[in-house]
């Protein structure tokens, strides 16, 4: 009796301009009905390619170079394309990473579900609508009759992912492959979505493969885990076992880099990468100067609504907070809570509707955003963006990107650099941010995610700002890269004495970096204060919900 899914010595090659790339090498695993398998690894580890081979949806350049995949005793590798079409969706189905991209943007979600049902002869013209609404009900969509007529853009990210899950489960498949199903979703939505998937698969006795970079998430929802690195399986063990007693050095490194339950940002790094001496606790600059660097009072941002009745949408509803000199403050909340709007206003990229932003004693809120580029304060407020790829000009080399603020604003004090002095400063910044100098002449698409993040940080600190806003700087990075970047940020703060306003949805990360935390919801501050205290004993229900949603590995 063979297993339900049996992958043996699978190898997948990709033909590229620079020759053959072995994306997956000699991967074997089995999966029984009703069980869940987690494939964990960082980007480029081959985890997605492995799952694509299972459904035979590799893109044209990829070929299964060796090994066998058996599904319910059927050899997937030699099955006809026609047979595969029947299997996809009905026997094996998949939840993709970006729910918005996986849905047809100009078709009602109800019709999209009907399409799948009718494709696999699960419904006919008479009962398709009824069945589609039933499927929507199963994924807990409120008012399924109304939502049936919605277009994807009218739904939130979490709702879209529920629709994608509904599509995947509509034909009652035997095996569900979830490829990073919750990346890009808020923690509370992530929990709701994963709980739903777990419950539905359990109730139907389905098997599931969960592909993720988040070890905590995998361990919470899977029975068995395999850890992949550079196309190879480095460790395979039951989830609990893997957490309690990791064998491979890479697994240990990944586990350590996951910030859940760690006390210090230094603990995220492998021992040989930690700084030689424990950094002496820096004298907080605040001790010398009591006035805060940034003081925000009653800040409001309203947008006019585009409805016939008029009215306004309040993105930020009169918030007040301060950031001291040399202090790190975390600004936490879910998407749509107004944290990014707040940081844009503080950065003077956006004009507030009302309220004051006092920076070093001056109300910089009075300088219009359009004119702020020429203000002497411009160089003192800088920002690291969420998406390092998007924040770098694709036509600028790393060197040119880092040099841009130096060219426009000059050094602190107004000194302009050019030629050799400019190059020297760029290289000094690269060294400071741990970016090897030979990478400086590369374009963004030739750099990895972590390298791009370093370029973004080097650019932001080029003109020695006093306040650095960090807008989820590690959200798009692998955990081990995140660990390195977080440590870099801590080092830079110690060396340069900047203040940080750290915008994030991840409380576990904020805890490691910040002294104080501000929790936002619906444009208002619900709780603020000492970071450790709030995480230990949250007072507001919302903070409690946020904390509870962080996946806790069963250690």
């Amino acid at each position, binding site marked *: 009796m063979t297993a339900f899914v049996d992958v043996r010595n699978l190898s997948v090659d990709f033909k590229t301009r620079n020759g053959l790339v072995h994306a997956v090498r000699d991967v074997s695993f089995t999966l029984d009905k009703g069980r869940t398998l987690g494939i964990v690894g960082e980007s480029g580890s081959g985890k997605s390619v492995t799952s694509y081979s299972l459904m035979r949806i590799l893109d044209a350049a990829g070929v299964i170079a060796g090994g066998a995949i058996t599904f319910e005793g059927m050899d997937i590798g030699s099955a006809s394309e026609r047979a595969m079409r029947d299997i996809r969706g009905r026997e094996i189905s998949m939840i993709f990473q970006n729910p918005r991209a996986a849905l047809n943007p100009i078709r009602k979600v109800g019709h999209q579900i009907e399409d799948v049902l009718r494709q696999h002869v699960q419904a006919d013209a008479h009962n398709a609508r009824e069945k589609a609404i039933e499927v929507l009900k199963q994924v807990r969509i409120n008012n399924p009759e109304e939502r049936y007529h919605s277009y994807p853009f009218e739904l939130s990210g979490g709702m879209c992912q529920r629709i994608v899950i509904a599509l995947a489960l509509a034909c009652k498949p035997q095996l569900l492959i979830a490829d990073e199903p919750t990346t890009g979703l808020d923690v509370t939505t992530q929990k709701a979505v994963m709980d739903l998937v777990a419950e539905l698969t359990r109730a139907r006795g389905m098997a599931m493969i969960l592909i993720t970079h988040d070890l905590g998430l995998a361990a919470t929802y899977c029975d068995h885990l395999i850890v992949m690195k550079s196309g190879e399986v480095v460790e395979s063990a039951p989830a609990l076992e893997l957490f309690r007693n990791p064998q491979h050095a890479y697994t240990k490194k990944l586990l350590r880099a996951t910030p859940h339950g760690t006390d210090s940002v230094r603990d995220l790094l492998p021992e040989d990468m930690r700084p030689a001496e424990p950094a002496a606790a820096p004298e907080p600059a605040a001790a010398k100067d009591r006035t805060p660097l940034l003081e925000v009072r009653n800040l409001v941002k309203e947008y006019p609504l585009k409805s016939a009745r008029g009215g306004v949408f309040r993105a930020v509803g009169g918030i007040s907070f301060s950031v001291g000199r040399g202090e790190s403050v975390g600004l936490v909340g879910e998407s749509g809570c107004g944290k990014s709007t707040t940081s844009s206003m503080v950065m003077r990229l956006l004009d507030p509707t009302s309220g004051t932003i006092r920076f070093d004693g001056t109300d910089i809120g009075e300088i219009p955003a359009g004119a702020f580029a020429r203000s002497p304060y411009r160089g003192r407020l800088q920002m690291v963006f969420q998406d390092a790829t998007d924040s770098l000009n694709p036509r600028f080399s790393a060197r040119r990107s880092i040099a841009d603020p130096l060219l426009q604003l000059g050094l602190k004090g107004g000194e302009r650099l050019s030629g050799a002095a400019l190059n020297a400063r760029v290289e000094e910044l690269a060294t400071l941010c741990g970016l090897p100098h*030979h990478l400086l002449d590369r374009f963004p698409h030739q750099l990895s995610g972590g390298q791009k993040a370093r370029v973004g940080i080097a650019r932001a600190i080029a003109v020695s700002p006093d306040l650095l806003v960090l807008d989820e700087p590690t959200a798009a990075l692998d955990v081990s890269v995140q660990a390195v970047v977080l440590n870099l940020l801590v080092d830079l703060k110690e060396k340069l004495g900047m203040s940080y306003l750290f915008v994030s949805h991840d409380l576990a990360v904020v805890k490691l970096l910040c002294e104080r935390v501000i929790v936002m919801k619906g444009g208002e501050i619900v709780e603020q204060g000492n970071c450790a205290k709030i995480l230990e004993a949250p007072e507001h229900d919302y903070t409690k919900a946020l904390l509870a949603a962080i996946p806790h590995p069963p250690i």
Partner: protein
Amino acid sequence: MTSTAEPARAAPGLITHTLYVLRSNPITLLAFVLLALFVLAALIGPYVVPHDPYQSNAANALKPPSWQYWFGTDDLGRDVFSRVVVATRLDLLISLSAVVISFFAGSTLGSLAGFYGGWTDRIVSRLLDTLMAFPLFVLAMGIVAAMGNSVQNIVIATAIVNLPFYARVSRTEVNIRREAGFVQAARLSGNSNLRILATQIFPNALPPMMVQISLNLGWAILNAAGLSFIGLGVRPPTPEWGIMVAEGARFIVSGEWWLALFPGAALMLAVFTFNMLGDGLRDIVDPRQRS
């Protein structure tokens, strides 16, 4: 993948990359070879042609293609081959200058509309719509007829009818990048709006514009030849493909097909070359293709 694990591989230079694009795409290679031939004909054509393109010779009128006259001779006994080759310079010059003008004017208008939005966008877009509402060739005819029959006015007319295409492409390409992260980052670096538009956003809109340029070169040649064909613009006896086709057309019925066929074929080949060139050009100017 960590930063140290990646092998240090320098970015291939423009020349290596161009060679790669040419090698991987035979159609692009063919287009570049043809383009080189046309450019060569335009540069040195008048000096190397076997006969004087203006020299009439009544004794040799309407001779079919032979070893002496490769493309035959016309009704005045002038060598058609020499005239086709010599015409290359004028035709390429008209289309190139028209495209350069409409590229700069069109992308400036379009970029401003895309970047500032609001009233700038509304005014520019409606103006372009008005322009697009006319049948383009008729519009060009009208402009030449109104402004006077000269090569300069043909260039201007061709530039005006092509302008909306550049304006629309650049408007869209600039608009989608207006709020991109790297634009915000440039604001933080102290760049003014115009500077951001010129140095950060516009260069990123270039790849699709390249396709437009190359397609338009083809249209512009057709447009100029078309105007000459109906008697506007270039005047005889200047060798120009459009006039030559127009003059030769009279003789097709009497069996002297070579008068219209060869200049027509040159015209077709030129348009064909520019149409094929587009994708290759785009791949060459896009640094993202370089890995």
